[in-house]
C-alpha cells in the first residue's frame, strides 16, 4: 500500500493555467475519486501523477519517493484509460504479458501471472482473442487485468466506465469495489459522474477550473458541501438555489426571506453574517415534497412531470420565474400547468454567503461524518 502526495502542483498549456496550485494527500490503500465537470483539469492531474504530463511547478511523491521528473515506468503506477488503450494487434494474453516482458520476467512467471489474473477477472477463456473480438465489458476487464498483473501499489483510472452502457457500468462498479477490497491498492479514480464518485469513493476530491473545491467522504460532501459549486455538483438532481436576503441573525441561525418564501430560519452558524446581506438558500430536490406541518411552503406552476413509479420528479416555476426541482411521492398528484405547493423542513436547507461559501449547518444527519460508504462492509 502506497500513499501519494501532491504539493503545489501547477500546469500550463500555453498561456492557460489548467492546474492552479493543487495540494492533495491520498492515503495508502484509499479509494479516492477526483470528480468535476469537463475541462476542470481532473484528467490532467491524473496524468501528472502518472508522469504522462510534465509538472510546471510543484512535486509529486509516491510512497516517500519524489517522482516529479521520473519516467512513468519508474513510478510504480498502473493506469486504466477511458478507451482501454489495449494493443489491438496483440491477443489478450500478449496484452497482459507485455509489461512483464518489458520487466524481463521469465516465461514461466509471466504465464503463471497471466493465467491467475485471467481467472480472477473471468477472462481466462478470452486469452487467445484479439481486442476487436471482445465486448466493451470484456475489454475493460482486460485493461484492468493489464494493471493488476504489474503488481504495483497505485492504480490510476481515467473515466474507465464512461464507454459502457448503464447496466454494465453498475456491474463494473461492483467489480471495482470487490477488487479494491481484495488488493487494497491505492486507487485514484477520475470521473465526471458524481453518482460513480458517491458509490465508489472512500474520499472525493471535487475539482473545478484547476482548483480543489472540497475534499471529504461522500456523505460529508453531500450533507456539508463547502460552497455553492460542490453543493450543486454533488447530488442528483442538482440542489435548488433560492436567492434570499438575511432578515435577522440569531445564535441558532439566520432568518432569510425572498419573494417566494415566508421568513425562514436556516439553522447554520452565522459567522460574519448580518441583516441585509444577500445570500443563497439551498434545498435538495429530495427534501422538497408536499407540505407537512412545520414545513416552509413555496408555490409555483408545474412545468414538467416525470413519473418514475416509486417517485415523481416535478419542476415548478414560481411567480418570480425561479425554477425548482422536487422529488415527490410516486402516488402524489401533479399535473403540468396546475399550481403546486411544495414544502421543506428548515433543518434540511443549506445557506451560502454572497461569495458562495457554505455556512456550517448546525443540524445534519449523523451519517454526514461517516468516512466511507463501505465502512459498514469492512
Amino acid at each position, binding site marked *: 500500500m502506497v500513499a501519494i502526495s501532491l504539493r503545489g502542483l501547477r500546469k500550463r498549456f500555453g498561456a492557460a493555467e489548467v492546474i492552479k496550485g493543487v495540494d492533495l494527500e491520498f492515503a495508502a490503500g484509499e479509494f479516492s475519486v477526483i470528480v468535476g465537470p469537463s475541462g476542470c483539469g481532473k484528467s490532467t492531474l491524473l496524468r501528472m501523477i502518472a508522469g504522462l504530463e510534465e509538472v510546471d511547478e510543484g512535486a509529486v511523491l509516491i510512497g516517500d519517493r519524489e517522482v516529479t521528473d521520473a519516467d512513468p515506468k519508474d513510478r510504480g503506477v498502473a493506469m486504466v484509460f477511458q478507451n482501454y488503450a489495449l494493443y489491438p494487434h496483440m491477443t489478450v494474453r500478449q496484452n497482459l504479458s507485455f*509489461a512483464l516482458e518489458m520487466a524481463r520476467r521469465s516465461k514461466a512467471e509471466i504465464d503463471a501471472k497471466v493465467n491467475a489474473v485471467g481467472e480472477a477477472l473471468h477472462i481466462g477463456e478470452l486469452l487467445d482473442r484479439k481486442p476487436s473480438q471482445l465486448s466493451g465489458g470484456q475489454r475493460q476487464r482486460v485493461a484492468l487485468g493489464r494493471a493488476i498483473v504489474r503488481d504495483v501499489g497505485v492504480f490510476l483510472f481515467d473515466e474507465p466506465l464512461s464507454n459502457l452502457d448503464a447496466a454494465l457500468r453498475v456491474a463494473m462498479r461492483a467489480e471495482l469495489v470487490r477488487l479494491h477490497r481484495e488488493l487494497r491498492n491505492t486507487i485514484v479514480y477520475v470521473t465526471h459522474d458524481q453518482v460513480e464518485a458517491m458509490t465508489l469513493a472512500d474520499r472525493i476530491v471535487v475539482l473545478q477550473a484547476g482548483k480543489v473545491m472540497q475534499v471529504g467522504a461522500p456523505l460529508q460532501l453531500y450533507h456539508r458541501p463547502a460552497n455553492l459549486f460542490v453543493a450543486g455538483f454533488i447530488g442528483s438532481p442538482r440542489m435548488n438555489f433560492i436567492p434570499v436576503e438575511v432578515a435577522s441573525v440569531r445564535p441558532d441561525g439566520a432568518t432569510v426571506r425572498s419573494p417566494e418564501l415566508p421568513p425562514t430560519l436556516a439553522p447554520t452558524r452565522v459567522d460574519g453574517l448580518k441583516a441585509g446581506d444577500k445570500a443563497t438558500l439551498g434545498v435538495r430536490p429530495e427534501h422538497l415534497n408536499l407540505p407537512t406541518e412545520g414545513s416552509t411552503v413555496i408555490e409555483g406552476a408545474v412545468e414538467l412531470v416525470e413519473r418514475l413509479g416509486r417517485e415523481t420528479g416535478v419542476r415548478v416555476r414560481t411567480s418570480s420565474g425561479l425554477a425548482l426541482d422536487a422529488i415527490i411521492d410516486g402516488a402524489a398528484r401533479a399535473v403540468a400547468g396546475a399550481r403546486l405547493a411544495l414544502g421543506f423542513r428548515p433543518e434540511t436547507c443549506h445557506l451560502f454567503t454572497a461569495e458562495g461559501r457554505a455556512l456550517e449547518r448546525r443540524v445534519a444527519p449523523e451519517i454526514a461524518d461517516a468516512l466511507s460508504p463501505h465502512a459498514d462492509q469492512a
Partner: protein
Amino acid sequence: MRRGLGVNLALAGGLAFLAVVALLPFWWVISSSIKATNEIVSTTPTMIPHSFTLEHFAKLLTSSDYPRFLINSLAVSAASMAATVVLAVLSGYAFFRLRFAGRDFLYRAILLAYAFPAIVVLVPLYGMMSAARLIDNLFALVIVNVTFAVPFAIWMMRAFLAAVPLEIEEAARLDGASRLTILWRIIVPLIAPGIASVAIFAFISSWTEYLFASVLIQSDANKTIPVGLAGIIGQYQVDWGLMLAGATITTLPVVVLFFFIGRYFVAGLTAGAIK
C-alpha cells in the same frame, strides 16, 4: 438517388471507354511481345495475335544485357524502397509525436524538395556525385531516389500515425517500454498498411526513374531497365520484338508487388481524408 437507365448506360459507356484507353496500351505491349516480328511491324495492326513466338523473350534473356539491367533495377529499387521506408517511419514518428524546436517549420520545409523540377537540380546533383566519386555507381541512384521519395513518404506516413491513439503509446510507456520498443513493437505493426503504401510508392518511383539514371550511370553494366530499354532504340532501326518483350517483363515486379500489397496503397492515398 436512383439514376435512370439512360444515365446508367452513358456512365457505363464512358467508364468502358476510359478502361479501354487505360488498358489498351498494356494489352498491345503484352500481346505484341508474343507476335512474330512481321506481324508486329505489319501495316495492318492486329488486336488478337495471329502468330505466337517466344523468340523475343529468348533473345532478350540470352543475347542482350537485359538480365543485367533487371538485376540493377531490382537492386536499386529494393534498396531505395527499404531506405525510404526506414527514414519515413522514423521521421514521420519524430514529426508527429516528438516535440522539438523548429519541428513545424522543418515539416513544411522538407516538401521544398518538390519545388523544383528534377531537371533543374540535375547539373548540381551531378557535380555532387562526381565530387563524391559516385558517378556510374548504383548507390548514387539510391541516394537520388530516396531524396525525392522521402518527403512525400513522410507526408503519407503522418496520416497513418495520426490514426494510432496516443493512449496506446502511453499505456506502453507505463508498461515500461522505451521509445524504440514502442515504435517497433506497437507502432510499426499498427501502421503496416502505411508502410506498405510507402514501400509501393518508393519502389515504383525508383523502378521507373529515367532522368538521373541516364546521366549518373555511364556504363552498360550499371544501367537500369528504363535506360537499358531506351538503348534498344537504335539510330537506324528498332528491334520492336525485343523492346516489347523487355517492357512486358519490366511490368512483372510491379504487378507482383501490387498483387500482394496494392490494396494498402489505395488506402494510403486516402487515409485521413475522413475522420
